[in-house]
Every structure is written in C-alpha cells, then in structure tokens.
C-alpha cells in the first residue's frame, strides 16, 4: 500500500475557513452574485481531491501532518483513504452547488454574507472531520460541525422556533460529543496512539480490551446523536427550521452522516462482535421504521424529507452493523446515492417553497407546466430514492438486499418495509406538487433562476451517470470506500441491469408493489399514523422539553438555596471552611508545629509589632465602622513595615499601596451601601464571628510556622538567582518572575483583574436600579416568575 504526502491538504482544509472570512465583504461588494464567486473555493477543493482518485483506487493513501501540541501527542494530521475521499468529494462537490443555490435562495436577504460565512465554516469543519487522522483533531472538527450547525439552524434568530431547534440540536449533538470525547480518549489509552491510521492497524487490540464495552457505548453515544438514531432522532426534523440550503447540505447530505462516518471508520476495529451486531442493526431498524412512518404522517415537503433522512440514516447504521462484506458494500452505495438524491430533493422542496410560497403538499398541484426543469429534477431524484432503474439508488438497493439475505429475516423485512415507504414519500414529494389540476398558490409560481435549479439538475445527472457507468464508479470510488469500511479487500461486481432473476430482484419487485399500493392509499395511511400518534401522545421531542425544564427548575432551586444573597452568610461559610481546611489536617495527624527559637527583637521591631497590635485592638474596640476601617489600615501599614525590615521591599511597597487603596475603597463601599454608622450585631453573632476570625488567624499562623520549619528547597531560588540577570536581563528577581519567567500566569491574572473590575462595575450599577432574576428563565418555563432580585449585598 503506497502512502503519499501531499502538503496541499493543509491548504484544502483551511480554505473554507479563509473563504468564510472574506464572504461578508464579498457579499457587500457583489450582493447575491457573491455565491457564484465563493463556490469556486469548494469547487477547487473538489478538483484537488478528485486528483487523488487514481492513487486511492490503487489502494494508496494520502497524508499530511504537522505538530500541534507535541507534548500531548496532538498533531494536525490528515489521512485520506477510500472512505475519506468519497466523503470529501461529496462535501466539496455538493458544497459547491449549495453555495450557488444559497445565493439564489436567499438573494436579497440582508444577512446573506453571514450565511455564506457560516456555511463555509461548516464545510471546513465537515471536511476536516472526514480527513482528520489525529483523534483529538477529529473530535475538535466534530464539535465544530455541531457549533456551525447550531448557528445555521438558528440563522433566522428572530423566530422562537428556530432558536429552540438550534439549542436542541446543540444540546443533543453536543451531549453526544462529550461521550465521543471520552470514547476517543479511551481508544487512545488502549491502543497507545492518537492517530486513526495506527488505531485501524491495531487489529483486535480494542475488541480484546476490557474497556471494549464502554468504548463502544461511548462512541455509539456520539454517533447515534449526530446521525439522529432513535430515540435521539427528534432534533433532525426540528432542524428544518433552518433555511433550505442548510437542510439540503447539513441535514441530509453531510453532517448527519458524520455519525455513520464514525461507525464506518471504526468498523474494522470495533465491529464484528456480538454486541456490535446486536445494537447497531436493532437501533438502525427501529430508526428506519419510525422514520418512514413519521414521514408518512407529514404534509410539509421538508418534514417528509427530513423523516426519510432519519430513516435512511437508520438503514445505514443497520447495514454497517452487520459487519458483512456485501451489506457494507450496500451501505456505501446507499450512502453515496442518498447524498445525491436527498440533497437534490431538498433543493427541489426549497425551489417550490421559494416560487410557490408554500411547501404544504396538500396545497400544491399542477406545477409541471410552470416549473418543468424542477419537475424533471424532482422526478430523477425520486426514482433514485425509490430504488428504481436506471438510477444509482437502484444499484444500491439491489446490493443491500443481497447483503441482508444472509442475516436475520427481521432485518430484511424492516429493510423492505422501509424502502417501500421511502418510495411512497419520494413520489409524494416529486409527483403531488407537479401533477393534477393547477392549484392557487400564495405566490404565482414560475421556474426559478439557474442558481436554484443548477444544484438538483447536476446531482440528478451525477446519480444517473454513476449508475450508467456503475463499473467505473465501483472500481474508482465505492470499491475503495467499501474496502476501507470492511477493513480488507472487497470483491465488487456491480451491474446496473441484473444478469439473472435473483432473490434481491424479487425483493425489489415486492418493494415496488408494496410501495405503489401504499402510495395509492397515502391519505388513509396518513390518518392512521396520525391517530396512532395521538393515542401515544408523547414523544422524545416533548421529553426533551421536560428534561430541560426539570434541569432549569432544579438549578433555580439549588441557586436560591445556596445563593441566598446575604453577604454575611457567604463570608461566614467561606471563612469557616478556610479555618477547617487549615486546622483539620494538623489536628487529625497531630502534627502541630513547635514554636521555633526566635531571636530577641530589636526595639524598633518590637515597636512595629506593638503598632500592629494596637491597630488590631482599635479595630475591635472601634465604635463606628469608619474608625474600624481606618484602624485596620494601621495594622496593614505595620505589616508593610515588617516586610521592609526583613528585606522584602517589593512586598512592602505593594502592601502599602494595597492598604491605602483598601481603606479608600472600603470607606467608599460603606457609604455607597448605606451601612449604618455603627455595627449592630447581637453579642451572640459577635461571639461566633470572633471565634471564626481567631480560628482562621490561628490556622494561618500555624501553617506558616509549619511551612517555615520544613527544610528549605533552594532549587528555584538558585535558578532565578543564576538566570534572571543572564537570561532575562533584570536584577529585580520578583519583577522578572512576574513579567518574564511566569509571564503567562500574569497574563491570566491581569485578565482576572479586568473581569473582576467589569463585574464590580456591573453589580454597583445594577444594585441601585432594578431587580433582575437570579436565573434567566427560558421561554418554555413561564410557571415561576417570582425569582428573587439580585440583591447581592444589602
């Protein structure tokens, strides 16, 4: 197997992000026509990846790698085999058409530039995901697709439904992402490598590992949420709130297949076990059936397509889960075919919506004369979706039936039923709006501009061409992909026209008969499913809301119970815990420090200590708060003097300034908060506070004694003594440590200073004006509106 290094892969991986940067500017200059220009970027990427086809078809791989965080084994490494290549071609190829389509679909939208930016960013993330070799890089790209998907679903952010759908998709796929992260780290620790290509070469290491079950479940957690498997399927139909280009691209052709990609990628090392071959086909089959049945229920074109996408993803998981050569070949073919026809049909649904003003299938009809190109594209897509000759969908269905023949009869039955229902939906989308008498639509329908119909037409032609030349498609693209998924060479012998009457052909005929029968009875079937759903009355979508509202209420209750808003309580708890932490370890282990031998203090040292003690006595005896604050300053200055006497001028300097400022700020805060001039604590409270204060002070004193009695480790001192002058050119070691040796820490600290300053400004400004709820409540939870105000200090 040859492996070539191609450095242009870095550029290809970065190009969509760079294009995303310039997209808003370009949109401002060119308007909607910017789509045609921006589409050149994915098109160039497509051509570059296409140049790898001969290499990969010959069994080779292309790689590129650079160090990222070498200390942690994180590299920015890419690795392209048959599986990655087909995905990369689909992402960049369909991406080109989608960018053009978006320019036509959202023409005149004021935020089109931002939309281009988001969709290009997504393209970069998705491309990186499928070509990443390093597991950490793969995970980062995975999360980036979730985030960009969130931005795209919520693109129309003024509508509550969009916002909810975006948040839902983010929570579901983000939660799965966390599971995947844990799974990826376990894989890395078991195999001892963070490179996917080396993991794939590890053979049975993962399968034989004790951690196999947790690894599998965590990876499935990521894949099932991303690829909308039952019971996590609900976010995908809701994601149809996004503009149609997004639905066509992310939520049918590419992103939702990321989970399937991951399963296919790991099939050689995680697959072929009892657990794998039980869980995947089971969930896949349930998803397939649930998806198609729910699709029948819908009348909105996009929702019908969305549910069949769920179903198709189920079918892909089912096929991958059998770990058999033929079924995997079927999965690969079906994945390819599905990306083409579903992308095209979504774009068709978008054109209808755009030109006729509605996408409700019951309010559409007779568009065939008005929109002939769209009709043709829709028909071609539907034929492929239905698995009829002479489209690539037909070849895919034949092969997958053949692959399933060897497995359980139930899986085969599920596949036949699912495919029959997909035929129903495919033709419902492609025929109902176009045939029959013309219906009055909200907008006067006519054919859209070329930017709109280019995409579905090209995808339809590719689906047709790849089927007519199925031998070439198989040997160049899909054979190498199937081999990468199977983990060994796959014998591929694809025919468009069956050469003899085989079992798959008979199953196909059965599928068509069932499908046509169901299509004729579609209205009755729809009522039936609707009534069944009414009886059940609960679905995971409602469940999601319930879970979220429970979490929100729990956190509101928890916040109210521990953040009561009284400063005294906070201070008491904090200081009592500090005292406990300091004293408890010494008390439990019985290692109290001994009093060290101290030299007799000179008269001025004794004098300074006396001043400090007098200051403290004054604090306790003070009658008004202002006197107490100033007396505390006396004690602070005395401590600063002590620092000075014992040779720490920097510390002393700082202590002087901090004391001055804290007296000023405490005084100001006191007047600001309208505190009473005198302290009115009852004596029981005074006793408690005094005890805590003395315990805390004693704790600090004892711990300091204990620390100074340890043997002093001079390593750091020697290092800084030796190097601060020679390396960092500074004689003041303290300052050199702050700004140079430990500069990064200081950078973090000053950021904290700044954030604290902003927070204090906000609190001071808010406390005078209005009460804001402690926990901002989401729109769903309107029940309890009586949350307590932000009276932090009062």
């Amino acid at each position, binding site marked *: 197997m040859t492996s070539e290094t191609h450095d242009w892969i870095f550029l290809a991986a970065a190009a969509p992000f760079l294009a995303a940067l310039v997209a808003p500017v370009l949109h401002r200059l060119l308007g909607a026509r910017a789509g045609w220009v921006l589409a050149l970027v994915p098109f160039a990427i497509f051509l570059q990846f296409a140049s790898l086809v001969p290499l990969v078809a010959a069994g080779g791989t292309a790689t590129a790698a650079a160090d990222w965080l070498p200390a942690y084994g994180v590299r920015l490494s890419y690795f392209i085999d048959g599986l990655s290549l087909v995905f990369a071609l689909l992402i960049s190829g369909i991406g080109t058409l989608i960018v053009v389509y978006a320019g036509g679909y959202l023409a005149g939208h004021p935020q089109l530039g931002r939309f281009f930016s988001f969709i290009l960013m997504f393209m970069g993330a998705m491309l990186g995901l499928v070509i990443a070799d390093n597991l950490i890089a793969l995970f980062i790209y995975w999360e980036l697709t979730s985030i960009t998907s969130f931005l795209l679903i919520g693109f129309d952010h003024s509508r509550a439904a969009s916002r909810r759908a975006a948040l839902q998709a983010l929570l579901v796929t983000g939660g799965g992402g966390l599971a995947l992260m844990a799974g990826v780290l376990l894989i890395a620790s078991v195999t001892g490598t963070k490179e996917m290509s080396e993991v794939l070469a590890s053979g049975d290491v993962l399968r034989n590992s004790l951690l196999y079950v947790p690894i599998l479940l965590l990876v499935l957690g990521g894949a099932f949420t991303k690829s909308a498997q039952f019971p996590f399927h609900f976010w995908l139909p809701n994601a149809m709130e996004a503009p149609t280009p997004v639905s066509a691209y992310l939520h049918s052709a590419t992103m939702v297949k990321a989970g399937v990609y991951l399963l296919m990628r790991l099939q050689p090392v995680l697959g072929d076990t009892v657990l794998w071959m039980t869980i995947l086909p089971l969930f896949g089959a349930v998803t397939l059936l649930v998806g198609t049945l729910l699709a029948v229920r819908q009348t909105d074109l996009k929702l019908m397509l969305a549910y069949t996408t769920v179903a198709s993803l189920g079918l892909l998981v089912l096929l991958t889960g059998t770990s058999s050569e033929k079924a995997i070949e079927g999965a690969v073919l079906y994945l390819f075919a599905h990306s083409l026809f579903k992308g095209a049909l979504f774009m068709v649904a978008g054109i209808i919506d755009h030109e006729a003003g509605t996408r409700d299938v019951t309010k559409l009809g007779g568009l065939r004369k008005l929109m002939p190109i769209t009709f043709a594209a829709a028909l071609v897509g539907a034929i492929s979706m239905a698995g009829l000759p002479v489209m690539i969908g037909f070849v895919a269905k034949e092969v997958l039936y053949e692959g399933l023949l060897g497995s359980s009869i139930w899986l085969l039955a599920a596949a036949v039923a699912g495919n029959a229902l997909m035929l129903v939906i495919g033709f419902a989308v492609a025929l109902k709006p176009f045939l029959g008498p013309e219906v009055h639509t909200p907008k006067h329908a006519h054919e859209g501009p070329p930017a709109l119909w280019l995409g579905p037409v090209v995808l339809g032609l590719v689906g047709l061409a790849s089927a007519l030349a199925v031998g070439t498609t198989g040997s160049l693209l899909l054979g190498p992909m199937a081999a990468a998924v199977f983990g060994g060479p796959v014998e591929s012998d694809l025919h468009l026209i069956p050469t003899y009457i085989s079992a798959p052909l008979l199953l196909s005929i059965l599928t068509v008969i069932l499908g046509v029968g169901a299509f004729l009875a579609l209205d009755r079937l729809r009522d039936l499913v609707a009534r069944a759903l009414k009886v059940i009355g609960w679905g995971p979508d409602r469940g999601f809301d319930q879970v979220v509202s429970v979490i929100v209420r729990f956190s509101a209750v928890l916040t109210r119970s521990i953040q009561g808003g009284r400063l005294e309580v906070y201070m008491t708890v904090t200081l009592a815990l500090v005292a406990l932490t300091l004293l408890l370890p010494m008390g439990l282990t019985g290692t109290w420090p001994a009093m060290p031998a101290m030299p007799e203090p000179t008269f001025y040292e004794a004098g300074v200590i006396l001043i400090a003690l007098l200051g403290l006595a004054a604090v306790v005896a003070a009658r008004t708060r202002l006197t107490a604050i100033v007396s505390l300053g006396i004690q602070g200055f005395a401590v600063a003097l002590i620092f000075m006497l014992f040779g720490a001028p920097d510390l002393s300097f700082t202590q002087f300034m901090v004391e001055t400022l804290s007296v000023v700020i405490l005084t100001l805060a006191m007047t600001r908060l309208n505190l009473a001039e005198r302290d009115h604590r009852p004596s029981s409270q005074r006793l408690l506070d005094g005890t805590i204060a003395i315990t805390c002070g004693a704790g600090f004193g004892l711990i300091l004694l204990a620390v100074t009695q340890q043997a002093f480790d001079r390593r750091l001192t020697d290092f800084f003594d030796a190097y601060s002058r020679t390396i960092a050119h500074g004689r003041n070691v303290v300052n050199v440590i702050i700004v140079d040796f430990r500069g990064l820490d200081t950078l973090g600290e000053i950021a904290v200073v*700044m954030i604290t300053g902003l927070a204090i400004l906000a609190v001071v400004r808010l406390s005078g004006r209005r009460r804001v709820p402690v926990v901002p409540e989401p729109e769903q939870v309107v029940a309890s509106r009586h949350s307590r105000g932000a009276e932090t200090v009062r």
Partner: protein
Amino acid sequence: MRTLIFRTVAPYIASLMLLFSIFVLLRGHNDPGGGFIGGLIGASGLAIYGLACGVATVRRAIRVHPMSIAGIGLILAALAGILSLPAGVPFMTGLWVYPTILGSEAALSTPMLFDIGVYCVVMGAITSIALCLEEYDGD
C-alpha cells in the same frame, strides 16, 4: 472631606503620584517596583483626585473610560506575547532591542511592553472601581 486645602493640593499630589507611578513602573526590572505596584500608585492618585475634585473632573481629565485603559493594557500584554510568533520563538519569549535614542542607548523589550500592559490593567480596573463607588455622592 472636600476641604479647601485638600482640593487645592490634590491635583498636585495626583500628578506627582502619576509621574511617580510611571517611574516605579519603568525601574521595576532592576529595582523594587514594576507594573503592578505602579498601577496601584496611579490608581490611588486618581482616586485621591476624585475624592477631592469630583468624579466628573477625573473622567474629563483622563478622557477615556478607565476600563478602556484596562482593556488596552490587556491587549498590550497579549501583544507582548504574540510578538514572539513572527520571530519564530515560543509564545512569550522575551525579545530585546537596544536602539540609540537621543544619544543614549535604551533597552526596549517585550517584557517591558508586558509590564506596561500590567500597569494599565491594574490602574484602569482599580480606578474604574474607585470612581464608580465615588460617583455615588453625585447622584
């Protein structure tokens, strides 16, 4: 607190403190001092000015919001770290140049830029807090 003497002397004290704070900042690399302590001195100076002559006067005198000074400081500090990237050395590696200004050699460095950033953040943030609390008397 606003006695005539205080109000008369405060501007002088404040300007002296600001000057001194810059002196402390710049000598910090070799002698006691540095950005943090310098920033504290500068903030105290402005706080005293505010106590004596009112917050509005201070705000007029410094022209920008003190929080912007802090923000600029944070950017300067981050910039001091990032400058090492074009030089091809790891993040925050100290870089030194010794140009001759007005006939005498000056040592300029990224740690110094960083320290100026620290100075601005501390002075800006503390001044904002102090001014914000002092403003209460006004409204």
